């Protein structure tokens, strides 16, 4: 049976690709792994390898055509075989439908979004030698990396220098070695890390993606940040009481996550995504928790946060943080959050402007708890106050709505017993 080759989806953000050039024509025999076309995405140009073996029955689009991802662009089968009649000219509308379903929330990490064009031989050699293809300069006709590029680009460094560079995230490609034929020694790395000289530290994949997404967020989303104060005395007292009575040591953050989930239930608009054509109020409330790791910022989420109890939020969060720092999170834990929380309270920060994790509608910044003097019944009393900083997408949410959400949230936090019901 004839099978289609589809426009590949290289990275969650990719919606369409351009067929720069077909390298095969109808009637050609191809086998699995053959490069059949060059495709351009919004990020890069890449070779499209066939995952099928057979005869090219039909090329559905000519060179230069933009085609939505996952749509068939060619049919491969036995010579003379017919292709399914309805295929070949998929309607744009259908395509959009597919896309909307597909617009689950973009994930924070995606290894495929950094796919690099390389020949199979180049990939094999690189994998054998443990060389990162991203460090290789391509010389292939179409900008792809060929085997020789990998061999030539292999950075000459001593065994120890390689280990130290990898450990300290030093990019060997940026270093000129002092040894024979510019071989890199540890002393050359140290030159990079001495205090008087600039130090160049290669971005981790997570940092690259986070950076791109944060930039995209600030450049494309009209963001507004609102601060509000919360009286924390009741919550602190309750937390103490829970600990005394049950031995469960919940954190302030657990209360905030739970309160936010409950507030989102009452303000669904804050739990939405924007897809250029519509606002999609998400069914699930999955709160993402920003975790700083050695490799960069990751935002794993607690699925259906609103169904959790204080105790379960505590254990789930702890587990997520531990695994985030160990780099052991599953992809699905890193994609699909509907609202994010970023807590900088432990750093004594009193206010900040968090950046929205697109395509979410808002992000809640949590600050430190401060002791302030307050007038209570005409007497000066010491009170604990915390500020929350909410950034929201003004296309989805307006100021009144965001403020109402904050008031609800503050109400939960100031009367935390309600969270336990």
């Amino acid at each position: 049976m004839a099978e289609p080759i589809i426009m590949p989806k290289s990275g969650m953000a990719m919606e369409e690709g351009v067929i720069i050039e077909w390298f095969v024509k109808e009637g050609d025999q191809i086998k699995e792994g053959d490069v059949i076309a060059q495709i351009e995405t919004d990020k890069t140009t890449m070779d499209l390898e066939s995952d099928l073996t057979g005869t090219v029955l039909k090329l559905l689009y000519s060179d230069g055509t933009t085609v939505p991802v996952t749509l068939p662009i060619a049919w491969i089968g036995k010579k003379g075989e017919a292709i399914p009649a309805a295929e070949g000219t998929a309607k744009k509308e259908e395509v959009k439908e597919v896309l909307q379903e597909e617009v689950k929330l973009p994930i924070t990490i995606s290894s495929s979004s950094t796919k690099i064009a390389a020949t199979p031989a180049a990939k094999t050699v690189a994998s054998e030698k443990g060389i990162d293809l991203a460090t290789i300069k391509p010389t292939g006709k179409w900008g792809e990396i060929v085997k020789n590029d990998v061999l030539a680009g292999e950075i000459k460094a001593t065994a120890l220098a390689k280990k130290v560079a990898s450990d300290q995230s030093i990019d060997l490609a940026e270093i000129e070695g002092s040894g024979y034929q510019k071989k890199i020694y540890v002393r050359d790395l140290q030159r990079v890390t001495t205090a008087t000289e600039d130090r160049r530290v290669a971005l981790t994949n997570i940092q690259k993606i986070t950076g791109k997404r944060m930039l995209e967020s600030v450049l494309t989303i009209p963001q507004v940040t609102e601060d509000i104060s919360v009286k924390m005395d009741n919550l602190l007292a309750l937390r103490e009481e829970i600990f005394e009575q049950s031995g469960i040591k919940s954190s302030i953050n657990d209360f905030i996550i739970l309160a936010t989930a409950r507030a989102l239930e009452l303000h669904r608009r804050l739990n939405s995504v924007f897809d250029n054509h519509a606002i999609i109020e998400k069914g699930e409330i999955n709160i993402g928790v920003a975790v700083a790791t050695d490799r960069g910022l990751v935002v794993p989420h607690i699925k259906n946060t609103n169904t959790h109890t204080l105790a379960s939020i505590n254990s789930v969060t702890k587990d997520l943080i531990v695994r985030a720092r160990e780099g052991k999170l599953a992809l699905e834990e890193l994609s699909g959050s509907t609202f994010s929380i970023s807590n900088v309270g432990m750093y004594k920060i009193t206010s900040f402007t968090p950046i929205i994790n697109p395509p979410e509608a808002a992000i809640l910044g949590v600050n430190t708890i401060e002791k302030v003097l307050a007038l209570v019944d005409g007497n000066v009393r010491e009170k604990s106050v915390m500020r929350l900083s909410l950034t929201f997408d003004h296309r989805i949410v307006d100021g009144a709505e965001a403020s109402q959400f904050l008031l609800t949230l503050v109400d939960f936090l100031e009367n935390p017993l309600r969270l336990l019901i």
Partner: protein
Amino acid sequence: MSNIKKDIVVIGGGPAGYIGAIKAARLGASVLLAEKKQVGGTCLNIGCIPTKYFVQSVHTISALRNGASRGIEITDPSFTIDMKKAVKGKDKTVKRLVKGVEFLLNQAKVETVNQKATIIGKNLVKLEDGTVIETKNILIASGSVSATVPIEGLDSPFVVDSEKILDLEYLPKKLAIIGGGVIGVEFASIFSSFGSEVTVIEALPSLLNGFDEEQVEVLSKGLKKNKVTVYTSTTVTKIETHTDEATLSLSNGKSLNSDLILLAVKRKANLSPLTDEFKIKTDKNRLVINEYGVTSVDNIYGGGDVTGLNMLAHVAYHMGEAVAHNICVDLGLLKTPKQKIRLDIVPSVVYSDLEIASVGMTEKEAAATKKYDIVVGKFPLSANGRSLSADFSEGFVKVVSERKYGQILGVFCAGLNVSEIIGEAVVAMQHELTVYEIADSIHAHPTINEALKEAAAICIGQCYHWGS
């Protein structure tokens, strides 16, 4: 004024001088080498080589002694040493090597003069016969001489230095060695094997100061087997000369009689090429050079023992090569950057029937830096086939590494022929191979060398010939 003009005058024909001269000449410089004795320096004439000649005799004696257990029946097991013949044999070897150096110098067209030389100006060197040479650069490689210590009666005719003892015409009955460093220990091993009754007197708390304690232990055992008496933390307070022998009074209250006393304390830089006419900076009686080998005068370089940095022939070779390179850069003969003298990874070896060989930081030194999570892999030679088949079960190879990257911080060996395996450790350390690469390389079997692989493997828990 002179009419001889040279690119370089090298003062001293030892390891730093002759290598520097040959290299510079091969690179196209016109070189004159002034040597007051014969080329080859302390190492070749009165140091490393002649002592190794005698150490080989120690091995021969040891082999004779072990013969019986191997079924080699020697009817009359007694032997005596004919020192005259021994010295003659030593001289033959030395002469052959000196000829070799002379050949290399000639081949490179280095003009060699058998004269003392002094520096009388930035570009002027005066020879003993009054000839003044005008030169663009000067390499001071005048080496070192035996140092002395203030001991009452040290002018006794029974006292010799490490040079004179090489030309003895008789075997001393009782040899007292003042100084338990490398020189003292080597001579103690040689003469105790030859049949002398040897006593070593060392001022510091242990023999071979600076070496790994376990290494010193192995060599000490060997000396003990040869009935060498060792006094540590002890000094000689007085030497009284009698007709046939001298009496040494020791700080520990003891006294001993000897018919030969070897003064084997430190060596000191030979600064005789320096004159009052033209000042070059010295510090604590050594020639001061920077990392490129340049003295306080920009066209005058120094290399080898005269710099007092690390008085070893192989260090002198390295300095000679680096300095010749740098002078040739000055002369425009080379277009490459100047070379630094690196003395961070320098092996050292002590010879006796068994040897000790070291490079890098000892476990203690590494711990003192507080920079490393230290892992030591020690493989005993009692588990090494080559060593055992030669009747030696003493010794070990010890790798001091750090856990994080497996970096090799030091290698310390003691045992049969271990001087021959330290080179691998030097290459590994210099070129940053870690214990992982050493453990992963196939080493020939059966060799002593294998023990280095095993020690590296112990560091990463992958040694299958030792441990559990």
